[in-house]
């Protein structure tokens, strides 16, 4: 139902967009692949892959990553599904508060949470010391497998919570009544009907959690210690103690991408087996929680969300404590912030905002274009563009970082160390949010509306800007805010690409943490947290929906 394909302006736009992806996505990935199979003399070799698989020292990182990611996925499901069930089927007081705080936790920078937990539960942590001094209790170690599992589960269960809310909301009350009619109620109904109906969402949430856990760089970097994971290994090889080894880092990256692709496909296959969609004509009426059961529901929900929020709150609290930069002292002041100002705070904020907004502008432009191309001008070429735009979704940030360095460290594209390469990394890494959101919105805009404008004598560009774009606005804005938040909290690719001139808030935080400047780190982390929180508030205002697709 589309006018005959002529070579028009949109074809040019398609080609330019494709060119962008070829240059900044395919070319770096190609470079990555090439580096991994050619040695310094330019000879083809599988030496790097062999080296990786030969030594348990390396292979163990894969197993570690998979093991901890699977464990995190499982635990987040166990934590997230009950709270979502209570939230969706009962009138909990303060439900909105639970939701917003959870969202805040999910969107915060991962390594800041890990850092706060170290301050709480680490060797010198306040709780650790308190327990040891008061009760003589040794509460175990926050480091290693257990620590990653603990920190990441508390950070990522809100994703399951948010996803499952969407699924539970779509369950029609009549389905529940029908099952009650056939004698299936209570726990049996929860497992046999409600969970089964939510299966596609459970799988989707599992994938998101797994991918996040697998690609997470900050948490294992800070508290992994002896428990070595994959993304950290890429970074270490790239910039490690043993000197730079691009080629080996590239080989590990290639293995990592193959892993995430396989998991992505596996999840797609699993989801396709649950090929149904539900929507509720008669939404479930929420019951009032009563008695001991009701009390336990409240206890569980608030304790869980409180625990997840604890590190954020603690960091903000700490940022106002006195310190000499490294060690916290009694009393409260703005010392940490004053110190931060002398340590590139201005530059960090500037870079984060300016580079972030530049990246965001490009993302929005790309998202509008790609949504239009995919939805309104479906063709082979545009499908390729759509697929390419989703590739970064399965690429760990450290892989993108390494790939960009390899591609753009030499002429003709010597971009390493510039602000431009940071922007490119962010655009590539964070555009899927906005693209998905814009595409989904445009799919809901009936083509009739544009045709109506055309039949009223409106030119194509005017129709696009006056009708199409305004109707996509909400989708674009809410997607853009999600992209923005993830840009603000970005660490894994920035850590490879940044330098003193392009330092960002998260990088300043990380630098302070790694140098042991706890007070300074707290100030930077608090600022990052507040920026994130404010962005989320704006997001909730704009999108007016709780159906956040992260």
């Amino acid at each position: 139902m589309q006018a005959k394909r002529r070579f028009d302006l949109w074809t040019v736009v398609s080609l330019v967009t494709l060119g962008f992806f070829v240059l900044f996505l395919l070319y770096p990935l190609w470079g990555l692949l090439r580096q991994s199979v050619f040695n310094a003399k330019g000879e083809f070799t599988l030496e790097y892959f062999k080296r990786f698989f030969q030594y348990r020292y390396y292979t163990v990182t894969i197993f570690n990553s998979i093991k901890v990611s699977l464990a995190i996925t499982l635990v987040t499901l166990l934590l997230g599904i009950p709270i979502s069930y209570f939230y969706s089927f009962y009138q909990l007081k303060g439900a909105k508060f639970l939701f917003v705080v959870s969202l805040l936790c999910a969107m915060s920078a991962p390594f800041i949470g890990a850092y706060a937990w170290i301050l709480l539960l680490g060797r010198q942590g306040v709780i650790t010391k308190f327990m040891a001094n008061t009760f003589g209790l040794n509460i175990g170690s926050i480091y290693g497998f257990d620590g990653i599992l603990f920190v990441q589960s508390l950070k990522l269960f809100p994703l399951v919570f948010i996803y499952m809310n969407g699924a539970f909301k779509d369950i029609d009350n009549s389905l529940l009544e029908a099952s009650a009619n056939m004698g299936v109620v209570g726990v049996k109904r929860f497992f046999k009907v409600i969970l089964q109906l939510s299966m596609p969402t459970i799988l989707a949430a599992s994938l998101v959690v797994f991918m996040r856990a697998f690609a997470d760089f900050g948490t294992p970097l800070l508290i992994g210690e002896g428990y070595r994971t994959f993304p950290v290994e890429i970074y270490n090889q790239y910039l490690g103690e043993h000197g730079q080894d691009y080629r080996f880092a590239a080989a590990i990256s290639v293995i990592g991408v193959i892993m995430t692709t396989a998991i992505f496909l596996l999840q797609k296959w699993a989801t396709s087996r649950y090929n149904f969609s539900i929507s509720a004509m008669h939404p479930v009426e929420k019951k009032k929680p009563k008695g001991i059961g009701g009390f336990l529901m409240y206890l569980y929900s608030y304790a869980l969300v409180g625990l997840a929020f604890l590190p954020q709150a603690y960091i903000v609290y700490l940022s106002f404590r006195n310190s000499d930069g490294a060690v916290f002292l009694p009393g409260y002041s703005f010392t940490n912030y004053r110190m931060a100002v002398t340590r590139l705070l201005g530059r960090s904020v500037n870079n984060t905002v300016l580079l972030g907004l530049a990246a965001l502008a490009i993302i929005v432009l790309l998202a509008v274009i790609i949504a239009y191309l995919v939805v309104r001008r479906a063709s082979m070429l545009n499908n390729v563009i759509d697929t390419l735009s989703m590739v970064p979704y399965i690429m760990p940030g450290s892989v993108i970082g390494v790939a960009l360095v390899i591609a753009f460290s030499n002429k003709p594209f010597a971009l390493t160390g510039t602000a431009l390469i940071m922007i490119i990394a962010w655009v590539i890494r964070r555009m899927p949010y906005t693209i998905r959101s814009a595409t989904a919105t445009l799919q809901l805009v009936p083509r009739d509306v544009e045709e109506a404008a055309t039949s009223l004598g409106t030119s194509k560009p005017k129709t696009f800007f006056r009708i199409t774009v305004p109707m996509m606005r909400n989708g674009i804005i809410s997607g853009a805010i999600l992209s923005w938040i993830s840009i603000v909290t970005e660490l894994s690719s920035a850590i490879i690409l940044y330098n003193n001139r392009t330092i960002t808030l998260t990088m300043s935080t990380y630098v302070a943490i790694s140098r042991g400047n706890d007070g300074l780190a707290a100030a930077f982390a608090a600022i990052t947290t507040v920026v994130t929180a404010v962005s989320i508030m704006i997001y909730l205002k704009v999108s007016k929906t709780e159906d956040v697709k992260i």
Partner: protein
Amino acid sequence: MSVDIKIKNALKKFGDNVIIPDLSLTVKKGEFFTLLGPSGCGKTTLLRMIAGFNTIDGGDFYFDERRINDLNPAKRNIGMVFQSYAIFPHMTVRKNVEFGLTNKNLSKAEIRSRAEKFMDLMQISELADRMPTSLSGGQQQRVALARALCIEPDVLLMDEPLSNLDAKLRIEMRSVIKDIQQTVGITTIYVTHDQEEAMAISDRIAVMNKGVIQHIGTPKGIYQRPANTFVAAFIGRSNLLEGELVMKGDMPYVRFEQYEAPVPAVASEFRKPQKVIISARPEELSISREDNGGFKATIISSIFLGLNTHYFMRLENGMQMESVHESTLDSIIEPGTKVSVTFNTDKINLFTADGSTNILTGVQNDAQPSAVSRAGGKRLAVG
């Protein structure tokens, strides 16, 4: 200013699928012309070809003498009303109505007064500053009409505009549309699959099937003298029976089983013994408990609807048919009763054995002959 529309040998393909093989028609100036047919018959496709949203793969489309095949849809000066109304959700009613005018070089005051004129005409002036989401379906429909007419188009195209409304509103909007079309005097092409709606609203109707026009005529014409069995079955309800035409002297007789009746309206070129398909509408049958020379049937069931009573019966050859009679004070005929059935020979239609041609005189069909020869085959069923 309205135009006449001429379509010559239109061709439309989607991939290798031919949707419209070869279609020609003419719509007169100021006429209310309806494309009627089952879903998938190509009526919306044809409408969108006229609007310019579908490409034209062959043939010529003219507004008056102007060939519009390659004219940009935005330049065709067409008012279009969509099934979904296609109201711009981010603009007020007024902005919606004014939208088309902003593309013409008009002053602000001119735009406003023109929009107001049409909002008055559609009785939506009091909604002018509301957002569309707060409007009912009928109100949105009025906005869509005002918006389409406001640009004073040469042609008004309407794609099933009433199908999203409830039954009562549909009938109300039907007369609103008809009235406004007559007031403005604009050439209108209207697409629907609802034959009652088509009959109520149109000057002329084109009945389409599988991309081919079966019959173009007035509502009365296509109902009373349908061009072929497809039209007979699609417009209203028809019992289709396999019978014979016999000649007794100069007078043609239709024979079904042992029943014979004279049909003086058979056209001269068809006056020879042959197999025919008899199309009798439920109201064109008489039933009698006594044997009056008609063919035999057994009543299966009846439905009393107040004004009329419907009878369903089984013929001796196993076929079922339906008849309608004005309700009487007598008792309703019991199921199982054997009855004798006769035709109202003035009203029934006779078709050639392949169902493609009505053999009676008085068939008014403006469709081009090339199209009619491709008419649908036999349809022996209660339509």
